[in-house]
């Protein structure tokens, strides 16, 4: 009946699992290759592609190599289905390294995806492209990363940060600098999510470049609690390293507790010895601090000393030094110290890490605890104890790691954990390793008051079914008994009972486990007796009596050793000794080798210590045993017998007295020798584990106890020096500005410059060019200013100059890249630079820097700000350069005029110039998709104007004829449907077509909205929170301008700065300058607080858009500018913000 029922139940459960599995991918995993995958991949249905890809994934999961499908899979990267895309990416990443050539086929699509409006698609594309890890595409990836690092989406920026280590992994020397700059840039990000990823990138790319941290230290500390948990783990470590490198160790911390603080305090304590100083410092703390529990000499200064030195130098280096040199190496004497009480940087680090001790991520807690362990003042260190103990409850796997760390902490400062001994009691779910660690910690932190409870526990553990653990417990009991003589007696009783209990099982020796426990028990007893043999005579006798029942050879050996060692102690032992020796002699032949050796030794010792009257009896026993030993099968025993015989010949030898004097002498010598060998006080191996290796808390090396590759000890204290003393003072007085690069020393001011400069250049996708610009960047102000003055006088030549520069500066980006790559490896065809260019060149000006006329001029007099409009010059960009257009050059500039047709249209000033010698006919610009004839354009125009829908381009009048070196200017009205993407147009000339791209400038999607400051503030107040976007950037243009400030009237530095800024903004965007607020500052050089306000409204819907620039820094330094945009249109506002930041950060060029 029941079997029947069982069967039904079984089939039922089978059926139910079948039902359960329907609709999952179970069949794909079970039989991935039961259909032909190849045709599925080429199917036109996404669902079939999906199935094929899932089958491939299943094969990968099962460890098959399916890389032969690579070419077919790569094709599918173009799929629109997001699931197909994801699956293809998974496949690609698995095999890209194996099939580099085919992988390159996919690059195009990634580049296209990188321009997608969906941030998820951009992020995936970037992740996969960077994950492909091919050397040849590294430059492209780097460009993509630097682009994505400025993406409006936090997620994409985060992925950009994650991509940096991937590029770094390829180990391309030429990219290192660019990667590090990007890391620095991302560390500066506003979003905590990005900072976490940037910190991880920092840790794997340039962990030693701590100056990058210095710039942002405070801001990083402050955002630490908001950073996502994984980033916190890494960031905490970085901040700790920075703080040590910058400020050194904290003198109140544990790390320095053993150092000679007197020396440091008043540099006259040189005569003090190490020991003395040590005591002094302890006494000092003991007196001064109320927390006597912690500092009352309980902290084991020697261990602490080793620990702290190991942290600083790495244990291997430290240990090797320790062996050959004095403990107090002079090298560390020169350390600098700081105090947690007055150093703001240290204070803030401790303050910001302490709430992390409550994190639900155990790794974060441990990392935060590590910082406090190293940096916090001793009296505050208590704070880490409870969180660490709580960690043990989180998961069994983390328990072990946490205990490994607690072990070191408790070794150094046992008093920390002493009150919490109950937390280390075993729980049934503990693994053996965890139990062993707990035992060790318990025996370390035991105190007079807790020892009795701990012993109670130990007694229970001894009966644990895990005998190995029971043996460890016995060892721990031994250790504790040695530490606390008070309890030694109880221990001995317990151990003896245990030994006799265990020995009853000795006969059948059921398990090895029992033997281990017994052995350990005897060993512990031996160790306890060793402390005070004379008072433990009874125990020895007890043990000797149990010799009969103890069968474990090693245990017997140990007892016999005790017989020999303590043969002359007390009253009882000498009395029982003859009997014991006879017993040993009787069973000598049946003993194991090690026991035999001990018996021989013991007899030797007994003989040595024996008094005259017993000598004879012992001698007899010994020679009997020596005879036995001489015939033993084991040569070790035969050797030992011979040796002892020779050594003790004076005792054993015949009692004849008529021997030669020489013999008498040799007898004396051997007597002394024997005394030394057998009676010498053996120094127990030092219990201090000087050989123990300590690695930084929370590190992998600490758990595996060797330096894992990539392990770095703490940096040398105070190894990070700043050239500029102003930084020091800045930090000490607690500067209000976090993350501020402008006030940094000269060596740093170059950095932000070159970051922004070179990055902008990179977006032109032309690297050789970037170099030359970088060079001109570095040459500084004087060059620029001289060329500027020229520019000012002759405006025409400047433009001309820039045109000459075109072939160099602005080739068709594609051809250049082609050249670059086709030379090295035929990549030219594979990489379409078009798509790359299309999304990279969002900023119309970035590719045309040389053509950009400098709008910066020397100011002639004190001018009111209103006059500035007269000096604003729109930037001219090239649409077609003469090299590509058979001598036709077309430039355009955005104009501030407003279109009369529709508010959606933007006006452009287009100038056609014929640089060739032939006249040109029938010039016209039309939209790409409309292949209009010149004849019907008039009708098209009427159509478009009659319709409500606005065309992309209001058709222009055809220029019938353009003579050689003639220039015609035309006003063009264009509608950019997308803020960022260029508009594709076709230029007709002489019947030929030239594709051209018109790049939008977001700055001209607005029109000035005049208002006064009151209205401005009111509007600003209406657009708070999510309508407000801010970013920081570095502005340097004014430096050059100020340096030629010897002209009269230009000595007002603020005015020059304002003008520079205003002109730069107004030349690139169609705004109204509302007001300029001068800073109120006592310091003439301090430009902080200078505030410029601009206003405008969107062309399309008249939504107001407000821009505020706030300056920080001093006049002759690069200025840190906070750009704030208030606008209801989120996307527009963010894009505009990015545009303005890029614009300001990009240095002016002559």
């Amino acid at each position, binding site marked *: 009946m029941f079997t029947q029922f069982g069967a039904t139940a079984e089939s039922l459960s089978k059926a139910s699992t079948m039902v359960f599995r329907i609709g999952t991918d179970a069949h794909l995993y079970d039989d991935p290759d039961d259909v032909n995958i190849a045709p599925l991949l080429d199917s036109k249905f996404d669902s079939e592609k999906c199935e094929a890809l899932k089958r491939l994934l299943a094969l990968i999961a099962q460890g098959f190599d399916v890389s032969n499908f690579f070419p077919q899979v790569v094709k599918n990267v173009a799929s629109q289905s997001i699931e197909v895309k994801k699956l293809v990416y998974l496949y690609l990443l698995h095999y890209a390294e194996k099939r580099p050539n085919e992988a390159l086929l996919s690059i195009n699509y990634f580049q296209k995806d990188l321009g997608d409006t969906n941030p998820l698609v951009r992020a995936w594309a970037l992740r996969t492209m960077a994950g492909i890890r091919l050397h040849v595409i590294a430059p492209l990836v780097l460009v993509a990363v630097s682009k994505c690092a400025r993406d409006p989406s*936090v997620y994409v920026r985060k992925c950009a940060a*994650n991509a940096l280590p991937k590029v770094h992994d390829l180990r391309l020397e030429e990219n290192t600098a660019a990667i590090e700059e990007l890391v620095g840039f991302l560390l500066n990000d506003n979003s905590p999510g990005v900072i976490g990823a940037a910190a991880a990138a920092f840790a794997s790319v340039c962990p030693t470049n701590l100056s990058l941290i210095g710039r942002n230290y405070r801001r990083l500390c402050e955002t630490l609690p908001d950073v996502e948990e994984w980033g916190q783990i890494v960031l905490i470590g970085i901040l700790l390293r920075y703080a040590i490198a910058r400020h050194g160790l904290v003198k109140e911390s544990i790390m320095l507790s053993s150092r000679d603080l007197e020396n440091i305090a008043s540099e006259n304590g040189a005569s003090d010895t190490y020991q003395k100083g040590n005591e002094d410092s302890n006494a000092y703390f003991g007196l001064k601090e109320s927390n006597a529990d912690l500092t009352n000499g309980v902290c084991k200064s020697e261990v602490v000393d080793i620990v702290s030195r190991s942290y600083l130098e790495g244990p291997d280096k430290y240990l090797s030094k320790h062996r050959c040199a004095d403990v107090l190496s002079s090298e560390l004497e020169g350390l600098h110290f700081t105090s947690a009480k007055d150093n703001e940087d240290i204070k803030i680090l401790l303050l910001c890490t302490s709430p992390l001790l409550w994190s639900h991520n155990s790794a974060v807690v441990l990392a935060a605890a590590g910082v406090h362990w190293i940096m916090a003042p001793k009296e505050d260190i208590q704070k880490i104890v409870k969180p660490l103990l709580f960690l043990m409850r989180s998961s069994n796997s983390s328990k072990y790691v946490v205990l490994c760390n607690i072990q070191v902490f408790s070794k150094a400062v046992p008093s920390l954990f002493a009150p919490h001994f109950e937390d280390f009691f075993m729980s049934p779910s503990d693994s053996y390793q965890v139990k062993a660690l707990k035992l060790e910690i318990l025996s370390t932190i035991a105190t007079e008051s807790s020892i009795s409870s701990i012993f109670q526990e130990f007694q229970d553990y001894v009966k644990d079914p895990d005998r190995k653990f029971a043996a460890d417990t016995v060892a721990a009991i031994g250790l504790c008994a040695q530490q606390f003589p008070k309890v030694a007696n109880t221990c001995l009783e317990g151990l003896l009972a245990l030994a006799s209990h265990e020995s009853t099982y000795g006969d059948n020796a059921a398990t090895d486990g029992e033997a281990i426990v017994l052995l350990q028990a005897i060993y512990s007893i031996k160790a306890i007796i060793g402390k005070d043999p004379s008072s433990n005579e009874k125990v020895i006798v007890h043990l000797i009596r149990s010799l009969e029942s103890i069968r474990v050879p090693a245990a017997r050996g140990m007892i016999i050793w005790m017989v020999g060692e303590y043969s002359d102690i007390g009253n009882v032992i000498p009395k029982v000794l003859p009997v014991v020796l006879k017993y040993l002699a009787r069973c000598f032949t049946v003993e194991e080798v090690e026991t035999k050796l001990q018996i021989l030794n013991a007899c030797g010792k007994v003989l040595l210590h024996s008094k005259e009257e017993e000598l004879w009896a012992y001698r007899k026993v010994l020679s009997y045993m020596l005879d036995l030993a001489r015939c033993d099968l084991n040569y070790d025993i035969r050797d030992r017998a011979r040796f002892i015989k020779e050594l003790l010949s004076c005792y054993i030898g015949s009692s004849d007295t008529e021997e030669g004097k020489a013999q008498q002498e040799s007898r004396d010598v051997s007597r002394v020798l024997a005394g030394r060998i057998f009676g010498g006080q053996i120094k127990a191996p030092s219990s201090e584990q000087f050989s123990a290796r300590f690695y930084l808390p929370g590190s992998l090396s600490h758990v595996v106890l060797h330096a894992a590759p990539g392990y770095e000890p703490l940096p040398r204290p105070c190894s990070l020096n700043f050239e500029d003393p102003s930084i020091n003072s800045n930090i000490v007085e607690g500067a209000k500005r976090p993350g501020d690069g402008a006030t940094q020393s000269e060596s740093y001011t170059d950095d932000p410059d070159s970051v922004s400069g070179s990055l902008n250049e990179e977006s032109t996708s032309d690297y050789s060019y970037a170099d030359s610009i970088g060079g001109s960047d570095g040459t500084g102000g004087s060059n620029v200013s001289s060329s500027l003055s020229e520019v000012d006088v002759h405006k025409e030549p400047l433009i001309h100059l820039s045109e000459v520069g075109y072939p160099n500066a602005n080739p068709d980006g594609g051809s250049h890249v082609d050249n670059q790559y086709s030379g090295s490896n035929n990549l030219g065809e594979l990489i379409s630079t078009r798509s790359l260019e299309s999304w990279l060149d969002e900023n119309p000006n970035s590719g045309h820097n040389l053509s950009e006329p400098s709008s910066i001029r020397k100011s002639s007099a004190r001018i009111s700000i209103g006059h500035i409009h007269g000096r604003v010059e729109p930037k001219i960009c090239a649409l077609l350069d003469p090299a590509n257009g058979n001598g036709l050059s077309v430039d355009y500039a955005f104009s501030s005029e407003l279109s009369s047709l529709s508010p959606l249209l933007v006006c452009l000033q287009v100038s056609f110039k014929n640089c060739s010698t032939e006249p040109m006919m029938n010039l016209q610009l039309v939209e790409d998709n409309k292949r209009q004839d010149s004849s019907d354009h008039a009708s098209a125009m009427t159509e478009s104007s009659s319709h409500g829908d606005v065309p992309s381009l209001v058709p222009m009048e055809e220029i019938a004829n353009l003579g050689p070196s003639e220039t015609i200017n035309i006003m063009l009205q264009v509608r950019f449907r997308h803020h960022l993407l260029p508009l594709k147009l076709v230029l007709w000339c002489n019947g030929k077509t030239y594709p051209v791209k018109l790049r939008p400038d977001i700055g001209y999607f607005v029109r000035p909205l005049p208002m006064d400051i009151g209205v401005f503030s009111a509007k600003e107040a209406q657009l708070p929170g999510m309508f407000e976007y801010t970013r920081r950037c570095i502005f340097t243009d004014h430096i050059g301008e100020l340096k030629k400030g010897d002209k009269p009237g230009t000595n007002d530095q603020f005015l020059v700065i304002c003008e520079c800024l205003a002109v730069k903004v107004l030349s690139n965007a169609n705004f109204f300058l509302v007001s300029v607020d001068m800073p109120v500052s006592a310091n003439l050089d301090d430009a902080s607080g200078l505030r410029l306000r601009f206003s405008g409204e969107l062309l399309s819907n008249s939504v107001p858009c407000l821009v505020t620039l706030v300056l920080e820094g001093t006049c002759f330094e690069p200025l840190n500018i906070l750009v704030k945009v208030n606008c209801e249109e989120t996307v527009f506002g963010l894009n505009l913000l990015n545009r303005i930041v890029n614009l300001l950060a990009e240095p002016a060029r002559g």
Partner: protein
Amino acid sequence: MMQCIFLLSDSGEVMLEKQLTGHRVDRSICAWFWEQSIAQGDSFKFMPVIASPTHYIFQVFREGITFLACTQVEMPPLMATEFLCRVADVLSDYLGGLNEDLIKDNFVIVYELLDEMIDNGFPLTTEPNILREMIAPPNIVSKMLSVVTGTSSNVSNTLPVATASCVPWRKMDPKNTSNEVYVDLVEEMDAIISRDGTLVKCEIYGEVQVNSHLSGLPDLTLSFANASILNDVRFHPCVRLRPWESQQILSFVPPDGQFKLMSYRVKKLKNIPIYVKPQLSSDSGMCRISVLVGIKNDPRKPIDSITVEFQLPPCVLSANLTPNHGTVNILASKVLMFFDHTCSWSIGRLPKDKAPSLSGTLVLAAGLERLPVFPTFQVGFRVMGIALSGLQMDKLDFKNLPSRPYKGFRGLTRAGEYQVRS
């Protein structure tokens, strides 16, 4: 950083491999791992960090599935461990449990999840709420849909808005038809009762679990009547730490759905709800065993699901145990190479008329006179409706909510590591 993640079934088969960086890890390392764990047994099985000849291996073992992560360079070991635990949590949440079949059946989702959770060996998105928006968990509807139409995508094509917000754990503006929030105190009591029957240690590990279905961006404040009894605390990232530091108030913007707001510990408790008295006496190769169970300090709420479990020592050949209430099962489980006999006595509720007892004899291996080692008894129980630590919630306030939601509070205590030594 982690280089590779492997998922192993309980027979040592590699179910999944996910390479994370350019430095590939060959799956032969799993074979090495498995050989070692067979050779070394338990102690290896529970090593969270293993130094193999070529890589460092981090190991997390959950319900038969072994999660391995490999690295060759220095990294915080807890980061890997914690991450693997998160992966296990997310997977069991998605798949409704963890076992070999579930993982194999849903391997595509596992791959997709892993890909979102980790990038280049560094954790990327681990917040379950966001993951759920990116990759839809399998459910009946999607399964049926895929059967009927053959198409279903579980990959979302939009980026969850929360990735950009300052409260990344919360979906942006979830619309809930119900407007309610439940706060549960779920406590586990850990206790050690020594051989002589004295209470060595008794403490409570508790969690404040919140199940919130609120619309908009609500701001909640929860305060306790006696926060001072809390020994240690840990918080969900949504909890603002400053208010806690200053006034011991929990102020937070909750994620949607079920989450663990806070975990805490209350130490040095004196009262245990039930007692278990084991007695073992052995002579001449037999061991008599009797176990008594009863109420010690009545929590004034019914105690149910009482179980007593202990492992028979390896030297026991056979056991004959009979209870006067409930049922006894002796289960042989094989952990790697070692057989473990676990005796489990399930009592359920305590009967009114008698005290439950278990008695019987154990037959020892030949040659053994007496039982040399003594098993530890693990006790399980559950008390509904009360938090035995005595922690009391004071009030729950709302801000930023259009209408007053329905609030519910509950307490529950169950046995954690409640062990009685014999």
